């Protein structure tokens, strides 16, 4: 039988004497928390200060229009229909370019991730071409594809393609090998391993890539529209700048920012839906 000795000095008071002092707590910090309201309060304070600075004349309205002036400009753009007109052009270019670049990037990324010959060739080409600023190719693309929507869409597609291909093959590489070996040990065919193991395993990296390529598409559409377009948010911002209509210019910037935020939200939603298992 176990001998359970009865403790006689278990009381916290028992061993206490005059020299006793609490152990110093050293485990604080290094765990920042996101306060939901803090960010909004800070934003409201900045906008409030900005409005105040403009209203009492600290800042020239030509150089920095007040938030209320920008809001008015957005409202007027919306009711005149110009906002939707420009936005629809930009959306069409982003949508088509992103979709084309993403489809090609996913196919090439999977090929690089799964096939040795494709990996050898693909990584060399991607390493060589990825660092080129894609907007620099726009004049060449105009030469090849003519003046119209095609060169702008192609510029966006090129920018999206490389980042997508890299995030896809990185995602394929990051799928734990033990899961693939497990599937092989059950004689699961190649295509089913790709569909049921590699695709879902690579999805976190692919979605993270989408977040980056959405920003790239936004950046490239504005640049391309500034270089050679009559309509689109980029063309509108450039036009407003040339005419010193800084309230309109910043209205365009705010719209771009809202558009970026909306895409971010969409990707967050996708991640919540598709990666709930994490």
């Amino acid at each position, binding site marked *: 039988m176990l001998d359970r000795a009865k403790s006689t000095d278990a009381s916290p008071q028992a061993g206490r004497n005059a020299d006793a002092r609490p152990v110093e707590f050293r485990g604080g910090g290094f765990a920042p928390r996101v306060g939901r309201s803090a960010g909004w309060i800070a934003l409201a304070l900045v906008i409030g200060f900005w409005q105040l600075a403009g209203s009492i004349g600290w800042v020239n309205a030509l150089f920095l229009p007040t938030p209320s002036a920008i809001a008015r400009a957005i409202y007027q753009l919306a009711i005149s229909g110009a906002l939707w007109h420009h936005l629809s052009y930009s959306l069409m270019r982003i949508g088509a370019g992103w979709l084309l670049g993403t489809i090609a990037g996913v196919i090439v990324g999977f090929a690089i991730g799964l096939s040795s010959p494709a990996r050898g060739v693909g990584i060399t080409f991607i390493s060589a071409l990825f660092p080129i600023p894609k907007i620099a190719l726009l004049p060449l693309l105009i030469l090849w594809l003519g003046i119209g929507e095609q060169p702008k869409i192609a510029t966006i597609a090129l920018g999206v393609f490389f980042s997508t291909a890299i995030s896809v093959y990185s995602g394929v590489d990051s799928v734990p090998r*033990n899961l693939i070996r497990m599937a092989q*040990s*059950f004689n699961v*065919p190649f295509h089913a391993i790709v569909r*049921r*193991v590699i695709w879902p395993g690579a999805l976190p990296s692919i979605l993270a890539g989408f977040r980056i390529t959405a920003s790239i598409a936004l950046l490239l559409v504005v640049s391309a529209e500034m270089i050679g377009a009559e309509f689109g948010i980029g063309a509108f911002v450039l036009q407003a700048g040339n005419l010193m209509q800084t309230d309109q210019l910043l209205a365009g910037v705010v719209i771009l920012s809202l558009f970026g935020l909306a895409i971010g939200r969409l990707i967050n939603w996708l991640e919540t839906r598709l990666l709930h*298992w994490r």
Partner: protein
Amino acid sequence: MDLIADHISHHFGALEVLDNVSFTVRAGEVVAIVGPSGCGKSTLLSILGGLLRPSAGSAELRGAPPPASLNPLTFVFQDFALLPWCTVEQNVEFPLLHTGLNGNDRRAIVDDTLRRTSLADFRETYPKQLSGGMRQRVGIARALAVRPAILLMDEPLSALDSQTRELLMEDFIRLLADGAMGAVYVTHNLEEAIRIADRIVVLSRRPGRVRETITIPLTRAGRGDIEARGQLLALQTELWSLIREEAIDAEREVQHA
């Protein structure tokens, strides 16, 4: 169905891992493979299960698998290898999806397997929500679902705490009790090997060679008896004496690597 390791040698580049390893796992027999760290136990298991091509020799099957078997050689992995995006039920069903069984048959097998492994209440749970022991239970359920002739177990308990190990060891002993299924059980834990195996193959340090094959002179059921304890302890001491010096050398080798 017998599984034969026939003069298997293997090297990774210049590193020789296995040297001329031969033994047979007879139908329904449980063979444990023990040896010092890095002696090629897991490599040998991968070769036996067809996941790695040996540099020389071969792994062979003799005799027909049981008629209902969907995957005669089935692994139970040390790290469980569960699909984190699938529920318990989907993980167990995974190997059945490509066997030509229809949905109803698959469901019946999954239901039966989950019941046998006490997982029926966890079918909608994701792996991240389970403890290590429960995850390995899912790994075992997935292996049982394909009705294997021989289970290939690669240190299946080594990632678990001691109490969970004890519980799962009891499950293994129960599952293997009727002799319908054989197993190759790779472990560095001599006590586990003695509890579960009919025979123990002792490998030397790298490159692994068969140093000794020890037959356990007691039935698996009889090993729980008090009277058997002394005999088992003596066996464990004998095994340890076989491995000890080489385990020390292997550890030094790893430290110097």
